């Protein structure tokens, strides 16, 4: 594969750092001329068609459709040789963020902590793909130097407005409205516009959202009138492309569920003392202005129990079990972008108050959709608070890279037998899933019993 020319993703708008490959307009082995449209990309600003800077045969499509890559990433190789094996597009996305490998926990597309990429310093030895610029390259073998041949064709991006114009329904809206629609998961094309020149206003969007919410509550707008057969091609079937966080979540869950043999166990707990403790903390001057919930006690209980049963705070690598002498406590959170599991770093070092503050910050950040990839990397054990939605218990799936997860069920008053008498108590169910490769039944039971013990008697934390 000699004499290939690599086309790197350019910054097509002032100061963009990345773009999504929407669709390839060429296939492996196609012959392209200079300025033939090869790919459609979507940037933060617009959908744009990129014309080929080289003439020759498409040897490699280096990025798959749907992937978001950084400016400067090689996306296509064009040369005169026979096409390479079509392996590349399915391989890992070329180039982007090495952090992506670390943030396996249920995440896909968190905003980058720092979008600005610095140039490598001298001596760092980063291999840079040297890419011959046509004008500088002698017109030898390989791709025809672009300048030498009159470009056969120019993308009709100007007078026709390009491929984007071809899309029938064009929606007008200002950027904040577009952002809000994206956050709400609303397709602007569905909103009736009332603004000047037919643009969708923020008000239009909000009233659409109100209607949507009303419709969803009554489910009136959900069911489609009987029309099709229910088979393929039925217009009543909605197809939602799997991407972003959904895709990452799915991948992580499959990876976990089908590689780690899960064992789930449950325990009912009388959490009345926890409720009392929470109540007293809320009233205490020391915790003034800090949100306190039973989750705080559970988090503390998990940290305490893990120290007594260290193997639950570990990673299975196949030939090693890595036991962690620190607790990066993950908290599963439903965010505007989907499920994410940010974690509290070194939670073992935090006082109860510090842990309460950390939990609040984590939740606020997640709700605002501002969770950073680094917040989600390096978790060691996870808590999922399904009780917040009124659910009693469930069998959670372990976050990849960890071996235990605790599900915290709802706490409600239930009949409970105390000293032979039935009395109303605040009862909850704790569920735990464990990777049996690391955690045997005995250990998982001890761990859960320890967590339950704290929930029953938080004073044990003083031990």
């Amino acid at each position, binding site marked *: 594969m000699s004499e290939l020319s690599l*086309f*790197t993703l*350019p*910054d*097509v*708008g*002032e100061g963009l750092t990345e773009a999504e490959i929407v669709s390839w307009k060429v296939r492996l082995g196609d012959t392209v001329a*200079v*300025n033939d449209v090869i790919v459609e990309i979507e940037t933060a*600003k*617009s*959908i*744009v*068609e*990129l*014309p*080929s*800077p080289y003439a020759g045969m498409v040897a490699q499509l280096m990025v798959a459709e749907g992937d978001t890559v950084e*400016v*400067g990433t090689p996306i296509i190789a064009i040369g005169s040789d026979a096409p390479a094996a079509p392996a590349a597009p399915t391989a890992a996305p070329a180039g982007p963020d090495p952090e992506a490998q670390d943030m396996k926990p249920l995440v896909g597309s968190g905003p980058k902590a720092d979008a600005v990429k610095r*140039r*490598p*310093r*001298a*001596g*760092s*030895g*980063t*291999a*840079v793909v*040297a*890419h011959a*610029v*046509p*004008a*500088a390259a002698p017109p030898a073998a390989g791709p025809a130097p*672009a*300048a*030498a*041949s*009159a*470009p056969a064709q*120019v*993308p009709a*991006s*100007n*007078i026709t*407005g390009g491929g*984007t*114009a071809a*899309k029938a329904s*064009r929606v*007008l*809206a*200002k*950027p904040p409205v*577009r952002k809000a629609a994206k956050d709400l998961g609303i397709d602007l094309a569905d909103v009736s516009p009332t603004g000047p*020149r*037919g*643009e969708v206003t923020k008000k239009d969007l909000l009233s659409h959202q109100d209607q949507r919410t009303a419709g969803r509550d009554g489910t009136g707008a959900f069911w489609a009138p009987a029309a099709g057969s229910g088979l393929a091609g039925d217009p009543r079937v909605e197809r939602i492309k799997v991407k972003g966080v959904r895709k990452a979540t799915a991948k992580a869950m499959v990876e976990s569920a089908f590689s780690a043999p899960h064992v789930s166990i449950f325990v009912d707990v009388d959490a009345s003392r926890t409720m009392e403790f929470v109540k007293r903390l809320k009233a205490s001057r020391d915790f003034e202005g800090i949100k306190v919930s039973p989750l705080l006690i559970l988090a503390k209980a998990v940290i305490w129990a893990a120290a007594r049963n260290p193997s639950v705070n570990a990673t299975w690598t196949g030939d090693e079990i890595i036991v962690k002498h620190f607790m990066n406590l993950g908290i599963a959170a439903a965010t505007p972008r989907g499920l994410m599991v940010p974690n509290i770093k070194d939670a073992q070092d935090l006082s109860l108050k510090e842990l309460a503050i950390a939990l609040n910050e984590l939740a606020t950040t997640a709700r605002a959709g501002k969770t950073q990839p680094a917040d989600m990397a390096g978790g060691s054990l996870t808590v999922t608070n399904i009780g917040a939605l009124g659910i009693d218990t469930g069998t959670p799936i372990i976050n990849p890279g960890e071996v235990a997860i605790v599900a915290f069920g709802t706490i409600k008053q239930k009949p409970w037998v105390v000293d032979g008498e039935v009395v109303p108590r605040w009862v909850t169910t704790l569920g735990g899933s464990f990777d049996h490769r690391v955690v045997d039944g005995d250990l998982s039971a001890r761990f859960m019993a320890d967590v339950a013990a704290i929930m029953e008697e938080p004073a044990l934390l003083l031990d």
Partner: protein
Amino acid sequence: MHMTECIPVEAYIDTNEPAQRVLAELLRPGKRGDGMGSAQQSATGTRPSGDGTERTGEAQTGRYAGASTGVLQANGVGEEDMVQLLDAGGTRHADGTFSPYIDALDAETLRGFYADMATVRRFDAEATALQRQGELALWVPVVGQEAAQIGSGRAMRPADYAFPTYREHGVALTRGLDLADLLALFRGVSNGGWDPREKNFHLYTLVLAAQTLHAVGYAMGIQRDLVADPATEPAAVVAYFGDGASSEGDVHESMVFAASYNAPVVFFCQNNNWAISVPFEVQSKIPLVNRAGGYGFPGIRVDGNDVLAVYAVTQWALEHARDGRGPVLIEASTYRVGAHTTADDPTKYRLNAEEESWKAKDPLARLETYLRAADLADDAFFDQVKNDDDELAAHVRQATLALGGADIRQKFATVYAEAHPLVAEELAWFENYEASFADADTQASTTQGGAA
């Protein structure tokens, strides 16, 4: 005649006031179209109309102040009014003042208009492609505005001087620049790219409207040259600007000075209807040409997609200016068919139907229709134009790639005319800093140029 002149006023009521609307209905005169309303009508807010039609433009709000002496009455040129010599279908129309300028042209010149417009469109496509390939940091498309630029540029003489915005690629062509020179700026390797004195075509000005002040100053300089040496060839200046810049204070100031000094300057506004995402009706409630009346010089609104009309009115205006009769404002009504720049996406703020309606008024298509119908050009001519333009595009591509990367040291070298110890110190610091980066990357940056 399309120049600003006093015509009967159109008065109007504030329709937001129901009581007034009722009164207006009650007092509506039976006969209309005979000029000014009576004092009673004006006092009650009736709206007589100069042409007997109801005014529906919502842009016109406010209350009718009456016809008393001292109340401004003129509203000059309407939205539909413009000088047009070649309509969108390619049919010629006669005009007493402006047709003679076209009648004086030979077939070669008319074909040249077409060739120039086609050249700049092809050039524009190539530059857009180069930007999409990472070879230019930015590009500013001109598609749709070819007639306004070629027509006005062709009307200028070599001694005249043009002050462009950053979109005057067509004017640059008519001034005789190598179009490839325009791209150094957009590649980020130069602040200019050409010597403005060679072709009397100033450097592109990125600061909106700033060049209108420079243009007036240059025109005032021409006046002084003439006083100092009466043998100086009379010349005029064309100040290019757009509808967006028209809202800048600089345009106002430049027009005040131009009028005060009777400077030989033609203000050429390409009203392409969009200031990035702001539609024209937000910039002005009435056609911009009417502003000329406020400064006391002539204004002409022209079909900016009709190269013949643009050429004729610009000739008229330049003669007016060169003859010492002062400035003229031309508003060329045209349309930016593409994006504001390659970093813009117009599909987010305007509808397809609007774009399509303007594409139907394409400046090249109508001239081609006319040239073919009048037997002034044949297939061979159009084929030749296409071949020439493809050659030019290849030349532009090659020249752009050969530009290489920016050398920031040049910036240090041009801070002061002579060596300066502080600048030397800062350069040394910078070179040391640059040298701390990986070699491979430095190499890449020099070959890739300012495209990142």
